[in-house]
């Protein structure tokens, strides 16, 4: 009886045969609405920082360098790929690409650095939570959002409440190389 059940088991498991996928040598693409790495389309982004407000992992940081330039840094190391930013963006500038092969040996490979030109804001009212205040009103040089890109943390404080020492730490901002094409 014991032997019979064993032989039956062996035959039973042999039926499906070898099912191993030859993955790294044959591609296994993710389904089309897969929530992979988010990508910012800098031509559509209006710099309203709605995504930075709504990211559960607080990996999207916004900093105003001066009256005209707002820098948006997405640090992929803590991103949990929940797709909340893509859902909240009023301009649908963020797309959850089906890219999942993000393995790397240096954490800077999974970051996105966007420089947005804020001078041409026409107060069109499309940006995030327009009814309370517009992004440009908050934008005063002191900047309503001054997250530390170096320490990669969202600080949610305006610049004027910073001590000078903290400001120096953020001086070493290097501009991204290529122009948005």
């Amino acid at each position, binding site marked *: 009886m014991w032997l019979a059940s064993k032989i039956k088991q062996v035959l039973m498991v042999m039926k499906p045969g070898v099912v191993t996928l030859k993955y790294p040598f044959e591609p296994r693409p993710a389904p089309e609405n897969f929530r992979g790495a988010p990508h910012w389309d800098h031509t559509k982004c209006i710099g309203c920082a709605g995504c930075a407000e709504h990211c559960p992992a607080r990996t999207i940081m916004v900093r105003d360098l001066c009256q005209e330039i707002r820098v948006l840094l997405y640090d992929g190391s803590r991103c949990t790929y929940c797709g909340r930013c893509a859902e909240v963006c009023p301009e649908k500038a963020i797309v959850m690409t089906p890219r*999942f092969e993000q393995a790397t040996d240096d954490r800077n490979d999974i970051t996105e650095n966007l420089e947005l030109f804020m001078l041409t804001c026409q107060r069109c009212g499309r940006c995030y939570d327009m009814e309370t205040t517009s992004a440009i009103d908050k934008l005063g040089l002191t900047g309503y959002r001054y997250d530390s890109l170096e320490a990669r943390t969202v600080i949610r404080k305006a610049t004027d409440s910073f001590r000078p020492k903290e400001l120096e730490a953020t001086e070493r901002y290097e501009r991204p190389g290529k122009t948005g094409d």
Partner: protein
Amino acid sequence: MLAKIAKKCFPRSLWVYHCNSGACNGCDIEILNILTPYYDVERFGIKLVGSPRHADVMLLSGAVTRPTLPLVKRAFAAMPGPKLVFGIGSCAVGGGCWFDTYNVTGGGATAVPVNYYVPGCPPRPEAIIYGVALALGLVDKKAAPVELKQVEFPIDVYERNKAWEERNVIYEVLNK
């Protein structure tokens, strides 16, 4: 001569030691998943072992919480010779949603030197296999930093030295 053979055989037989330092066990299930029939990393010679003494690769999953920080360091120290550390999942790569709460010390890098990061929450088994293949040198890296500018700004705003501030009067107005 033996050392040369051993070095050549090292990537072909990686014994993996799984260290969960505070993960939600989503990544642990994916780590076990790559041993199951559909993905089966044993074809690369990877085996899950129970003791750090026999291990070559430490699979770190989970944001290193305060109590596990010394334990992860000890487990890493207990591993012999040529060893690698893989950080699997957003918690190990950067600390996850709770990277800065009172009981979490941040990602895997705060405890041990991490060689390869596999982001994802949880990363697909294919993504983990891709990370392993990257370490074995079978594939090359696809991730690259993205840096974009909306416009090439005419004046260079970034010359933040004394001269620039005098020239630009708006700073006096605001710095009172």
